[in-house]
């Protein structure tokens, strides 16, 4: 083939590929229209007032992922009728949690060349009271039962050049004093009764006790994960158990729900939901047999709710906490559920 012919072939191919690329970008850009229209058969959503306290019976607040004008907004449904009409707040979060009248909302901020991320503290009426830059992609969020402490975990890339490994940073914020611990790695680590130092320590998935002093979290080092119990006063974390990720403390604080890496499952989808009794250390496998990559929440002392990937990002399910029964769908196109009492 002559050089001329080659250049011609290349030019034609580039024109064709450029057309495909442009079409795909335009298609994705035009999707904003489609995503702003509710899908047939999807849940009904309407704008309204969403509060983190107040009457009206038990409610679930969550990130609504259904297509339509209120996509990604914090929305609420009555806990007794989760399939009913959703009320959307206008506040967009990719991850959310709330308790005691305080909400924590993790957001992606599209600005400049590179996306940035922030954590926004919300009051009971979803008004912003503080905001913090966070160093990576938001993953987990929790608020302590009293509403005083908030925590978030983010994934940080770039720890190594041209590589796809991620590390995590777990931050804890005292919303009353504004004191922020940007990374739990600043805490003293006690592993097997001794001070432990390692460069590869990662923390994620914090869950708080009601005493506003203690918390549980995942610590990973040397390829293993541990359940740690943290002390906000002493600024220490102590290992309790191994192979525990994304713990979630039950309302009566006797049990921890978590995802466990189970031997024999595919290395990249290894997690099953378990509940561990904190006193005896006994683990119970739950009836959900799919790979759960989420920090479950307790709907009450007997039921857990969690997300699984779905057509619109994620769907929510519930399963009994004692290993019996079967998983049941809770909400479609939803993420980050929080159960709020109506009292």
């Amino acid at each position: 083939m002559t050089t001329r012919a080659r250049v011609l072939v290349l030019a034609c191919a580039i024109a064709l590929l450029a057309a495909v690329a442009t079409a795909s970008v335009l298609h994705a850009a035009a999707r904003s229209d489609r995503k702003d229209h509710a899908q047939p058969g999807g849940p009904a959503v309407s704008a309204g007032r969403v509060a983190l306290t107040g009457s009206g019976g038990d409610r679930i607040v969550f990130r609504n992922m259904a297509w339509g004008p209120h996509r990604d907004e914090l929305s609420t449904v009555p806990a007794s009728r989760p399939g009913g009409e959703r009320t959307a707040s206008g506040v967009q979060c990719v991850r959310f949690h709330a308790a005691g009248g305080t909400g924590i909302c993790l957001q992606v901020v599209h600005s400049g060349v590179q996306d940035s991320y922030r954590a926004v503290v919300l009051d009971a009426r979803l008004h912003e009271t503080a905001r913090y830059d966070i160093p990576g992609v938001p993953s987990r969020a929790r608020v302590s039962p009293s509403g005083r402490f908030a925590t978030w975990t983010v994934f940080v890339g770039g720890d190594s050049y041209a590589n796809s490994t991620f590390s995590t940073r777990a931050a804890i914020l005292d919303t009353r004093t504004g004191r922020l611990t940007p990374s739990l790695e600043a805490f003293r680590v006690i592993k097997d009764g001794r001070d432990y130092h390692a460069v590869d320590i990662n923390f994620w998935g914090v869950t708080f006790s009601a005493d506003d002093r203690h918390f549980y979290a995942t610590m990973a080092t040397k390829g293993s994960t541990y359940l740690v119990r943290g002390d906000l006063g002493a600024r220490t974390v102590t290992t309790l158990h191994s192979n525990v990720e994304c713990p979630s403390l039950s309302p009566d604080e006797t049990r921890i729900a978590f995802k466990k890496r189970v031997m024999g499952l595919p290395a990249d989808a290894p997690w099953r939901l378990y509940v561990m009794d904190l006193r005896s250390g006994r683990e119970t496998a739950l009836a959900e047999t799919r790979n759960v990559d989420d920090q479950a929440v307790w709907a009450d002392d007997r039921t857990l709710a969690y997300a699984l990937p779905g057509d619109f990002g994620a769907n929510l399910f519930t399963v009994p906490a004692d290993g019996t029964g079967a998983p049941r769908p809770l909400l479609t196109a939803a993420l980050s559920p929080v159960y709020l009492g109506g009292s």
Partner: protein
Amino acid sequence: MYVADSRASGAPSAGSAARVPDRPGRRRAAVAPTVLALGTVSLITDVSSEMVSAILPLYLVVGLGLSPLGFGLLDGVYNGVSALVRLVGGHLADRGTGRHKAVAVLGYGLSALCKPLLLVAHTLPLIGAVLAADRTGKGLRTAPRDAMISLSSEPGTQGRSFGVHRAMDTAGALLGPLTAFLVLRATVDGYDAVFTVSFCVAMVGVLVLVLFVPGKLTGPSAGTVDGVRTAPAEGSPPVRLDGSGPGSGSGSGSGRKGTAEAARPTFRAALALLRRRDIRRIAVCALLLGLATVSDSFIYLLLQRRLGVPDRWFALLPLGTAAAFLLLAVPLGRLADRIGRSRVFLAGHGALLCAYGLLLSDWHGAVLPYAVLLLHGTFYAATDGVLMAAASESVPVALRSSGLALVQTGQAFARFVCSLAFGAAWTAWGDRTALGAATVLLACCVLAVGRTLGRPPAASTRLDAPTSEETPA
């Protein structure tokens, strides 16, 4: 016309090289067209692949609601597989005429086809499988590509050629994330658009490779090229390219013949390369220095901890290294051709040593992070392509891919061992002591390697006759 073309058509290169100075008033191209073409392929491909890696965490977490941690844990496995696949790719590429290009097309093509698959893979296992295939493609193509760069370059301009290639490669790596974020900016959750654009870009790369990189870089001329390279270029004084020391290789025809026989592209022949003193020396030096090369992530973590780099800027640290790499790859490659590749390779580790020193020092100037990243980028610019250029001098043409793959894999293995040891040392003694230990180790390795490579080679036993344009006018 440049030598690569004449070589591709089977003409003896040293003849043309010797003739060129007699042709006044004509400046020759700085690098072979094939190198530019391969550089373009790498640039385009890196735009494509870095587009995907830049948005992957965002896509997994925000788009799919998964946590990328499980995938991150798999990454180490993929990297190990990629190093082994590289050996296989190198071996396949050496087995016959035009195989380099065929294997490279296979590798680039496989990675390109993985991009549209990301559109349909929505669970972590599937995404993991697609990325594993992508890594396999990368592993396959690396050694044949580097072999083609070296085979299409004059012996005296290897460093420059690799420098140009690495600079273009890094430019692509810097443009990739930018492109991805621009696409995301223009769309709503446009991850699918990013994957589609990435695929289109990758296909352009494959097409440039298919259309503009000649297939027969070795073939019938292989023996000739090798033979010619041993012949001293008349009329040009020997320039020291590096320390291929006394007795390395053989200048005599009979010795060369023996090498050619040993150079049949079998796995055993590839391993037998290590019996050759000059190759073994390069491999051992790379291995030794690799054992004292702390991995990038540790450098960035140390920078962050020692200097309190804000979290927000953390992701930008690798860009600093890449920018320095981009700017310095060509000048340092050219310098390597002039003063000796091993010297520059060694000096690059000297730059790394300085970076360690700065990290250990008590100096807290505002320019410290920039200085460290500049030194770190200098280290890459002085070692990454330069090592391939240095290795190319000794590896026979028939085994070029396998030989380069062997050196690369050895170095990668050494760095992996170093990472493990450094992590353990950090745990046991703290970051400062660990870095101090690494510094001492690196200094010893640099000294030891410097003594080995510093010995003046005997001019009469030079393997690679320099080309005339390398002779200072």
